[in-house]
């Protein structure tokens, strides 16, 4: 009997980075000739399901193209069939599974479907399954909701319930607390829950690593036997290619090879897609090579995922390792890692000067590039603070007269080499010999002059850099200046957005002063960041999710058009955390610790913090910590109300360190008065010593409205302090929601910028803390095991640099 219809949840974005730039996870190639969604759709056919709806997000062209009319899976029907239901509200940002709100947009589909039960399942599971078996279990157990788990008890985000019950949630999506079926399964009261464990081979593909391991598992006969068998075959779109051709000197062992491949080199333990060419002398080991890649002669590819149409040039070596796979982008050309010269031009760089996170990123990137074999340089202004401290170490490299406006200015270039990186400083009495870094009325002129001088001083470099990497608005004019330059117009540029709120809106006369052409319709003001984003070769930001969010006006505001125009050249690379943050070597905290003594040490650190801040001392208090600038962005609009309610629970405490806007400070002081001895407000910015809070609090709060990357949550994780964050930007990319059933996850996340949702998750955490000490300990261990290394972030930048260079060679 056919009483089941299927909702394919293709809204899951996963963390694939490059692989999903041009497609959704469901459309990812898998197993040499399939796409992930083939498994779900074939399962439909094999389960006699004829009514299927796919809810995609974003770029679903590739998926729609693959599915076509659905005839491949017998879904091209007169009655029912397959429906692709795209988002209507384009301002809904990515979620981790399909929301009731998203379903409500297509409520007509649900009302019209006349099957009694519905299965909701993601498009990125590799399995061969009869869905009717799930329904049977659901009915036999008289369940309200059934969730399917893999043999390893991973959650598969696959649910069975009656259409009637689903419609209750969908139609009331705006008044209930649950956003999706996971929430319902985890939190809804009075439901009969039925977890069903699927014992056969099953892979939930959520990252390049998952994709790689699942492909490698296909090399095992027992796994293949559970996925591919007669009578329940996995169907894919019909495409055409000849049979594969092997050359005279080819060698192939233990590999899967799709049709149309030409193998002249050697292939071992790999999965090779359609029409891949492996030329003479090329070696491929332990890799996943997607359709139409070309591996040229004598190239070596190891532990890599090469996306479609990647070309690995003659003799190039592409090698990752099991933990850090090499992943190429679609149509990338990979050339051998010849020595790459990268010059960063920036307004600030740690350790010389720092006003915010930008300096840390630039400084640590410069330092880490060297360890990866890149020639790394930096140019920055010589502020008086730097001069005082470093002038003895620097040597004069060049002097120039720079024309700016109608004036000529004298400038000098000093340089200082440390740990392989050459730091260059531009001295100008007129512009940089001042007390502060920013905050002068002529900031526009200062950084325009700096940009021009930096390009002019390239004359003093022995080797012209391959790439100039610029940061934020201050250096936004550099790509335009380079384009006008005779000598340097071919240098390619990467512009990184650290915070899009600061854009450098300045007087339009600056362009004239720089000798740059006036825009066609002269406006009274120009926007440094906008000009930079338009003219840089490639642009990036500091997390994958923030990159995604910037496509929406809510986040990118006035720059939404330019961001969307540059979407194809826009990348997200997560910042790393310096090794300096480590509780096992932290001298400031009361008791150093690592995974072995964490539970004992955190208790002592908690007592120490409570005493220091003069609040009630005791293990039983659930301490919420926060270190933050107190501004709107950081979520204080929802925070104050949420904490006010939460603190009514007498066993809770709140510790805050930071300073900022008076309108919040006042309310925070009132909060402290209302709950004496349980709230500690330290409303001064004491950035040097927040560590005792990271070490002493139980949870760390970051309910930001937006957060490009964020560092606090990474430090908190390292210190085993559980983060509670809003699902935005870098917070989304670093924190995984703790799942009670599987004991996976390293923190708590909420989606809506709403005090109720925040409060719900704080209470959720508090409940786990009080009632499930064992799970709480597991959560702390998960947190401390999270890794966000500078090395990984640096490698990602290098991959991006290399692909930029190879792209520019192609043109």
């Amino acid at each position, binding site marked *: 009997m056919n009483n089941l219809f299927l909702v394919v949840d293709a809204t899951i974005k996963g963390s694939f980075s490059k692989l999903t730039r041009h497609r959704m996870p469901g459309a990812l190639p898998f197993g040499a000739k399939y796409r992930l969604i083939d498994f779900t759709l074939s399962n439909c056919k094999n389960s006699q399901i004829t009514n299927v709806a796919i809810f995609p997000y974003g770029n679903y062209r590739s998926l729609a193209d693959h599915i076509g009319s659905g005839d491949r899976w017998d879904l091209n029907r007169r009655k029912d069939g397959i429906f692709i239901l795209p988002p209507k509200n384009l301002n809904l940002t990515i979620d981790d599974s399909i929301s009731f709100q998203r379903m409500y947009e297509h409520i007509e589909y649900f009302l019209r479907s006349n099957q009694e039960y519905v299965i909701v399942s993601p498009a990125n599971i590799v399995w061969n399954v009869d869905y009717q078996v799930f329904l049977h279990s659901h009915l036999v157990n008289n369940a309200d909701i059934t969730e399917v788990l893999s043999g390893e008890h991973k959650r598969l985000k696959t649910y069975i319930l009656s259409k009637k019950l689903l419609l209750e949630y969908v139609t009331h999506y705006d008044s209930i607390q649950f956003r999706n079926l996971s929430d319902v399964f985890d939190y809804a009261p009075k439901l009969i829950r039925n977890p069903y464990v699927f014992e056969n081979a099953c892979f939930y593909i959520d990252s390049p690593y998952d994709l790689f391991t699942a492909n490698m598992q296909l090399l095992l006969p027992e796994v293949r036997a559970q996925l591919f068998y007669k009578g329940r075959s*996995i169907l894919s779109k019909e495409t055409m290619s000849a049979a594969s051709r092997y050359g005279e000197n080819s060698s192939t062992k233990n590999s899967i090879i799709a049709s149309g491949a030409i193998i002249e080199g050697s292939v071992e333990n790999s999965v090779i897609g359609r029409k891949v060419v492996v030329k003479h002398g090329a070696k491929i080991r332990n890799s996943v090579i997607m359709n139409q890649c070309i591996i040229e002669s004598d190239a070596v590819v190891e532990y890599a995922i090469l996306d479609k149409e990647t070309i690995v040039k003659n003799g190039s070596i592409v090698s990752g390792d099991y933990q850090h796979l090499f992943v190429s982008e679609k149509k990338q050309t990979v050339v051998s890692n010849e020595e790459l010269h990268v010059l960063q031009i920036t307004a600030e760089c740690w350790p010389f000067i720092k006003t915010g996170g930008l300096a840390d990123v630039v400084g640590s990137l410069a330092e880490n590039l060297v360890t990866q074999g890149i020639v790394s340089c930096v140019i920055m202004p010589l502020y008086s603070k730097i001069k005082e401290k470093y002038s003895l170490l620097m040597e004069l490299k060049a002097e120039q007269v720079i024309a700016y406006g109608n004036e000529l200015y004298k400038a000098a270039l000093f340089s200082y080499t440390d740990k392989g990186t050459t730091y260059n400083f531009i001295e100008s009495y007129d512009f940089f010999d001042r007390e502060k870094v920013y905050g002068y009325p002529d900031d526009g002129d200062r950084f325009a002059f700096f940009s021009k001088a930096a390009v002019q001083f390239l004359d003093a470099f022995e080797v012209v850099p391959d790439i100039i990497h610029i940061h934020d608005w201050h250096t936004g004019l550099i790509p335009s200046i380079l384009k006008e330059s005779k000598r340097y117009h071919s240098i390619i540029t990467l512009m990184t957005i650290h915070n899009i709120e600061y854009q450098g809106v300045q007087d339009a006369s600056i362009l004239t002063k720089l000798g740059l052409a006036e825009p066609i319709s002269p406006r009274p003001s120009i926007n440094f960041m906008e000009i930079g984003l338009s003219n840089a070769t490639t642009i990036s930001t500091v997390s994958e999710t923030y990159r995604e969010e910037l496509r929406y006006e809510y986040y990118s505001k006035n720059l939404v058009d330019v961001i969307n125009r540059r979407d194809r050249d826009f990348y997200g690379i997560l910042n790393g955390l310096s090794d300096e943050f480590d509780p096992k070597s932290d001298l400031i905290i009361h008791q150093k610790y690592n995974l072995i003594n964490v539970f004992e040490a955190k208790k002592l650190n908690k007592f120490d913090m409570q005493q220091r801040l003069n609040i009630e001392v005791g293990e039983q208090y659930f301490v919420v910590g926060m270190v933050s600038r107190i501004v709107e962005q950081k979520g204080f609009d929802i925070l104050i109300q949420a904490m006010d309610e939460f603190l009514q629970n007498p066993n809770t405490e709140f510790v805050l360190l930071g300073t900022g806007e008076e309108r919040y400070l006042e309310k925070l002081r009132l909060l402290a008065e209302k709950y004496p001895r349980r709230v500690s407000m330290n409303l001064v910015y004491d950035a040097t010593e927040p560590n005792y809070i990271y070490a002493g609090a139980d949870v760390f709060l970051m309910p930001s409205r937006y957060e490009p990357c964020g560092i606090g949550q990474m430090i908190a994780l390292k210190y085993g302090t559980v983060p509670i964050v809003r699902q935005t930007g870098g917070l989304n990319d670093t924190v995984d929601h703790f799942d009670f059933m599987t004991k996976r996850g390293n923190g708590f996340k909420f989606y809506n910028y709403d005090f109720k949702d925040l409060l719900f998750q704080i209470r959720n955490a508090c409940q786990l803390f009080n009632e499930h000490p064992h799970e709480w300990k597991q959560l702390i261990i998960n947190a401390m095991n999270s890794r966000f290394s500078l090395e990984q972030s640096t490698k990602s930048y290098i991959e991006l640099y290399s692909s930029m260079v190879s792209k520019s060679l192609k043109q």
Partner: protein
Amino acid sequence: MKKTIVSMILVGGKGSRLKEITKDTAKPAVSFGAKYRLIDFTLSNLTNSNIDVVGVVTQYEPYDLMSYIGSGASWDLDVVDGGIHFLTPYAKNGDVLWQQGTAHAIRQYFNFVKEYQSNYVLILSGDQIYKMDYQKMLEHHLNHNADITIACTNVEKEEASRFGIVTIDESNRVKTFEEKPSKPKSTLASMGLYLFNTNVLEKLLIFDKSDEIIDFGKNILPKSIADGDIVSAYTFHGYWKDVGTIESLYQANMDLVENPDFLTLNTSRNLPIYSKSLNLPPHIVLNHGDIKQSIIADGCLIDGKVNHSVVGYECIMKRGSKIDHSVIMPNTIINENVQLRNVIVNKGLEIPKNYKLISDEIVLLDSTNIRKIGEIHE
């Protein structure tokens, strides 16, 4: 619906020289090049030439071929106005209209041509391996103001007497046409591929209703030349193979093995040869697999040595086996320690353990002779 051109593919013949290979199937459905059937080439040429009305004139063992072609969707020939039509023998007023000769079959279905009111009729055969743009042939036809155009290709002198041989003048006009002459006057052979003006074809097909066999090569074309119709020869220069014998089938497969750019099968983006997708998983090479200069299709599991050979889809080849200069048709199982050389293995055969057949000339191995030739060695 009016169409400029309709095509009719003649697939009737039994192809008895292919022996057991065509026991249960028409010749155009014979497997070639690991994953193709012979008919794929003609159907792909049609779709690549934008000709979408195709009559498939079948007679002998039509089932396999018809189910293979299906709606024609694999070749994009499932169009609303036109597409694939199967033209099978039928009974009329009590007489069974069994087709007698190639032209006879066309006359029987002349209504099909009329339905599309086409100006030109393209007559093709379904058992040849080549890649051709029929629109270029039509251009030639129009440029030469021809009534009939015959596609021709140069063949080896020794082989010429196997074909219809034409002689032409300097303007490509055909002077003589002789079917399988004992003393060929030239090496320019008809490919059995003709383009007719519809009215000329209609005129030529009026002949006495008799039991006589009516053939294009033997009857129609010589008659037309004698009538003074303008018959033009279009010389085709690419690869072309008429697969009529075990040897030519083997040779065509070896041509594919030896020429990496054979009909640009692996490299062309614009003119692909389509075949029906069987939804097979990719092939797998296991730890003892060793493949040199060979063609392997989907669904195979290879754990032996393959050299200079073609292995069709869904073949299983177990450890210790060696095949050399051979053609393995689809769905074959080769058990442990089998050795083959210069063998065509017929579809679906299971070769027992330790079987050995090392031959100097090309042999067809099938269920009728597996016990007679070859041996089980220890």
